[in-house]
Protein backbone atom coordinates (compact mmCIF):
# COMPACT_ATOMS: atom_id res chain seq x y z
CA UNK A 1 0.00 0.00 0.00
CA UNK A 2 1.46 3.39 -0.92
CA UNK A 3 2.93 5.34 1.93
CA UNK A 4 4.26 8.79 2.24
CA UNK A 5 3.06 12.11 0.95
CA UNK A 6 2.79 13.21 -2.63
CA UNK A 7 4.89 16.25 -3.15
CA UNK A 8 3.07 19.34 -4.38
CA UNK A 9 6.28 21.07 -5.35
CA UNK A 10 6.18 22.48 -8.85
CA UNK A 11 8.94 23.68 -11.06
CA UNK A 12 8.90 27.46 -11.29
CA UNK A 13 9.94 28.63 -14.71
CA UNK A 14 10.80 32.25 -15.32
CA UNK A 15 7.91 33.80 -17.18
CA UNK A 16 8.34 35.86 -20.31
CA UNK A 17 7.69 39.51 -19.53
CA UNK A 18 4.09 40.62 -19.99
CA UNK A 19 5.07 44.27 -20.04
CA UNK A 20 8.45 45.79 -20.89
CA UNK A 21 9.06 47.07 -17.38
CA UNK A 22 11.42 45.90 -14.68
CA UNK A 23 10.01 44.74 -11.35
CA UNK A 24 11.40 47.88 -9.72
CA UNK A 25 9.43 50.08 -12.11
CA UNK A 26 6.28 48.07 -11.57
CA UNK A 27 6.70 48.31 -7.82
CA UNK A 28 7.06 52.09 -8.02
CA UNK A 29 3.96 52.37 -10.17
CA UNK A 30 2.00 50.14 -7.83
CA UNK A 31 3.06 52.17 -4.84
CA UNK A 32 2.10 55.43 -6.54
CA UNK A 33 -1.34 54.17 -7.52
CA UNK A 34 -2.01 52.90 -4.01
CA UNK A 35 -0.86 56.13 -2.45
CA UNK A 36 -2.92 58.22 -4.85
CA UNK A 37 -6.06 56.20 -4.28
CA UNK A 38 -5.80 56.10 -0.51
CA UNK A 39 -4.75 59.71 -0.10
CA UNK A 40 -7.52 61.18 -2.23
CA UNK A 41 -10.38 58.72 -2.05
CA UNK A 42 -10.53 58.73 -5.85
CA UNK A 43 -10.17 55.37 -7.54
CA UNK A 44 -7.18 55.85 -9.82
CA UNK A 45 -6.45 53.19 -12.37
CA UNK A 46 -4.21 52.86 -15.37
CA UNK A 47 -5.00 50.92 -18.52
CA UNK A 48 -2.09 50.19 -20.83
CA UNK A 49 -3.09 48.57 -24.09
CA UNK A 50 -4.74 48.98 -27.41
CA UNK A 51 -7.74 51.30 -27.61
CA UNK A 52 -9.21 50.38 -30.95
CA UNK A 53 -10.32 52.74 -33.66
CA UNK A 54 -12.21 55.26 -31.56
CA UNK A 55 -9.92 55.68 -28.61
CA UNK A 56 -12.12 58.05 -26.64
CA UNK A 57 -15.21 55.87 -26.72
CA UNK A 58 -13.19 52.76 -25.92
CA UNK A 59 -11.66 54.54 -22.93
CA UNK A 60 -15.12 55.60 -21.78
CA UNK A 61 -16.38 52.03 -22.21
CA UNK A 62 -13.59 50.81 -19.98
CA UNK A 63 -14.47 53.47 -17.46
CA UNK A 64 -18.11 52.43 -17.55
CA UNK A 65 -17.15 48.78 -17.08
CA UNK A 66 -15.96 49.65 -13.59
CA UNK A 67 -19.58 49.63 -12.56
CA UNK A 68 -22.25 52.33 -12.51
CA UNK A 69 -21.76 53.26 -8.88
CA UNK A 70 -18.01 52.89 -8.56
CA UNK A 71 -17.27 54.75 -11.78
CA UNK A 72 -18.35 58.04 -10.26
CA UNK A 73 -15.29 58.03 -8.03
CA UNK A 74 -13.03 56.56 -10.66
CA UNK A 75 -10.43 58.26 -12.78
CA UNK A 76 -9.03 56.12 -15.56
CA UNK A 77 -5.80 56.91 -17.40
CA UNK A 78 -5.81 54.89 -20.61
CA UNK A 79 -2.56 54.81 -22.57
CA UNK A 80 -2.09 53.12 -25.91
CA UNK A 81 1.63 53.22 -26.74
CA UNK A 82 1.07 51.55 -30.09
CA UNK A 83 -1.36 54.25 -31.18
CA UNK A 84 0.47 56.95 -29.20
CA UNK A 85 -2.63 58.28 -27.55
CA UNK A 86 -3.54 58.89 -23.94
CA UNK A 87 -7.07 59.35 -22.64
CA UNK A 88 -8.02 60.47 -19.15
CA UNK A 89 -11.62 59.68 -18.21
CA UNK A 90 -13.14 61.02 -14.99
CA UNK A 91 -16.42 60.06 -13.37
CA UNK A 92 -18.83 62.49 -11.78
CA UNK A 93 -17.26 62.77 -8.37
CA UNK A 94 -13.75 62.49 -9.74
CA UNK A 95 -14.45 65.31 -12.16
CA UNK A 96 -15.63 67.48 -9.32
CA UNK A 97 -12.39 66.93 -7.43
CA UNK A 98 -9.98 67.02 -10.37
CA UNK A 99 -10.81 69.68 -12.95
CA UNK A 100 -10.42 69.23 -16.69
CA UNK A 101 -7.60 71.70 -16.59
CA UNK A 102 -5.71 69.56 -14.10
CA UNK A 103 -6.29 66.52 -16.29
CA UNK A 104 -4.96 68.43 -19.25
CA UNK A 105 -1.83 69.41 -17.34
CA UNK A 106 -1.30 65.79 -16.34
CA UNK A 107 -1.70 64.74 -19.95
CA UNK A 108 0.91 67.26 -21.03
CA UNK A 109 3.33 65.95 -18.41
CA UNK A 110 2.69 62.40 -19.54
CA UNK A 111 3.26 63.26 -23.19
CA UNK A 112 6.53 64.97 -22.37
CA UNK A 113 7.78 61.73 -20.78
CA UNK A 114 6.25 59.41 -23.34
CA UNK A 115 8.04 61.23 -26.13
CA UNK A 116 11.27 60.07 -24.54
CA UNK A 117 9.93 56.54 -24.26
CA UNK A 118 9.66 56.74 -20.48
CA UNK A 119 6.23 55.22 -19.88
CA UNK A 120 6.51 54.51 -16.17
CA UNK A 121 8.02 57.90 -15.37
CA UNK A 122 5.25 59.68 -17.23
CA UNK A 123 2.52 57.69 -15.49
CA UNK A 124 4.01 58.26 -12.06
CA UNK A 125 4.44 62.00 -12.53
CA UNK A 126 0.87 62.30 -13.85
CA UNK A 127 -0.48 60.38 -10.85
CA UNK A 128 1.43 62.64 -8.49
CA UNK A 129 0.10 65.77 -10.17
CA UNK A 130 -3.47 64.49 -10.03
CA UNK A 131 -3.05 63.47 -6.40
CA UNK A 132 -1.91 66.97 -5.62
CA UNK A 133 -4.84 68.50 -7.42
CA UNK A 134 -7.42 66.24 -5.84
CA UNK A 135 -6.48 66.97 -2.27
CA UNK A 136 -7.85 64.95 0.61
CA UNK A 137 -11.23 63.28 0.61
CA UNK A 138 -14.14 65.34 1.86
CA UNK A 139 -15.18 64.58 5.39
CA UNK A 140 -18.81 63.82 5.73
CA UNK A 141 -20.06 65.56 8.85
CA UNK A 142 -23.24 64.08 10.15
CA UNK A 143 -25.69 66.76 11.26
CA UNK A 144 -26.53 66.27 14.91
Amino acid at each position, binding site marked *: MPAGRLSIARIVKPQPPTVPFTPVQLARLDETINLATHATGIDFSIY*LGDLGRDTRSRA*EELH*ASIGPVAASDALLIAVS*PGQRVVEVVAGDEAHRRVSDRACKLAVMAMIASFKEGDLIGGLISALRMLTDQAGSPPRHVHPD
Partner: protein
Amino acid sequence: MPVVETVLIYVLIPAAIYGVIALLTLLPKSTRVARYRVGQPWTYEPVWWSATGEHRQQESAPAAEPVRTARGGARGNW
Protein backbone atom coordinates in the same frame (compact mmCIF):
# COMPACT_ATOMS: atom_id res chain seq x y z
CA MET B 1 58.86 22.07 -5.85
CA PRO B 2 60.07 24.23 -8.68
CA VAL B 3 58.81 27.78 -8.90
CA VAL B 4 56.94 27.23 -12.16
CA GLU B 5 54.95 24.40 -10.70
CA THR B 6 54.12 26.44 -7.65
CA VAL B 7 52.85 29.29 -9.75
CA LEU B 8 50.81 26.99 -11.97
CA ILE B 9 49.09 25.21 -9.16
CA TYR B 10 48.41 28.05 -6.75
CA VAL B 11 47.86 30.96 -9.09
CA LEU B 12 46.68 29.77 -12.44
CA ILE B 13 44.07 27.30 -11.34
CA PRO B 14 42.32 29.69 -8.94
CA ALA B 15 42.50 32.40 -11.60
CA ALA B 16 40.89 30.06 -14.11
CA ILE B 17 38.10 29.17 -11.72
CA TYR B 18 37.62 32.85 -10.93
CA GLY B 19 37.49 33.69 -14.62
CA VAL B 20 34.93 31.02 -15.41
CA ILE B 21 32.63 32.20 -12.65
CA ALA B 22 33.07 35.81 -13.75
CA LEU B 23 32.07 34.85 -17.27
CA LEU B 24 28.98 33.13 -15.92
CA THR B 25 27.85 36.40 -14.37
CA LEU B 26 27.96 38.06 -17.77
CA LEU B 27 25.31 35.77 -19.21
CA PRO B 28 22.06 37.63 -20.01
CA LYS B 29 19.30 37.01 -17.50
CA SER B 30 16.46 34.90 -18.75
CA THR B 31 13.91 37.41 -17.47
CA ARG B 32 15.53 40.51 -18.88
CA VAL B 33 12.95 42.87 -20.36
CA ALA B 34 13.42 44.68 -23.61
CA ARG B 35 13.41 48.44 -23.32
CA TYR B 36 10.49 50.07 -25.05
CA ARG B 37 11.23 52.81 -27.53
CA VAL B 38 8.84 55.31 -29.05
CA GLY B 39 7.35 54.13 -32.30
CA GLN B 40 7.70 50.44 -31.58
CA PRO B 41 4.45 48.52 -31.97
CA TRP B 42 2.91 47.48 -28.68
CA THR B 43 2.57 43.72 -28.77
CA TYR B 44 1.73 43.02 -25.13
CA GLU B 45 -1.63 42.10 -23.70
CA PRO B 46 -3.59 45.01 -22.24
CA VAL B 47 -2.86 45.59 -18.57
CA TRP B 48 -5.09 47.40 -16.10
CA TRP B 49 -3.62 48.54 -12.79
CA SER B 50 -5.88 49.52 -9.97
CA ALA B 51 -5.57 50.05 -6.25
CA THR B 52 -8.86 48.46 -5.30
CA GLY B 53 -8.67 45.38 -7.46
CA GLU B 54 -12.44 45.29 -7.70
CA HIS B 55 -12.67 46.15 -11.37
CA ARG B 56 -14.13 43.30 -13.26
CA GLN B 57 -15.11 43.27 -16.87
CA GLN B 58 -18.87 43.31 -16.92
CA GLU B 59 -19.23 40.33 -19.18
CA SER B 60 -22.45 39.04 -17.75
CA ALA B 61 -24.50 42.07 -18.66
CA PRO B 62 -23.46 43.85 -21.81
CA ALA B 63 -25.69 46.83 -21.33
CA ALA B 64 -28.37 47.21 -23.93
CA GLU B 65 -28.08 50.91 -23.44
CA PRO B 66 -24.48 51.84 -22.69
CA VAL B 67 -24.28 53.79 -19.48
CA ARG B 68 -22.31 56.96 -19.78
CA THR B 69 -20.23 57.43 -16.68
CA ALA B 70 -17.60 59.71 -18.11
CA ARG B 71 -17.96 63.26 -16.99
CA GLY B 72 -14.71 64.81 -18.11
CA GLY B 73 -11.04 64.27 -18.59
CA ALA B 74 -8.47 65.06 -21.18
CA ARG B 75 -6.68 63.50 -24.05
CA GLY B 76 -3.47 63.85 -25.95
CA ASN B 77 -1.16 62.14 -28.33
CA TRP B 78 2.48 62.21 -29.20
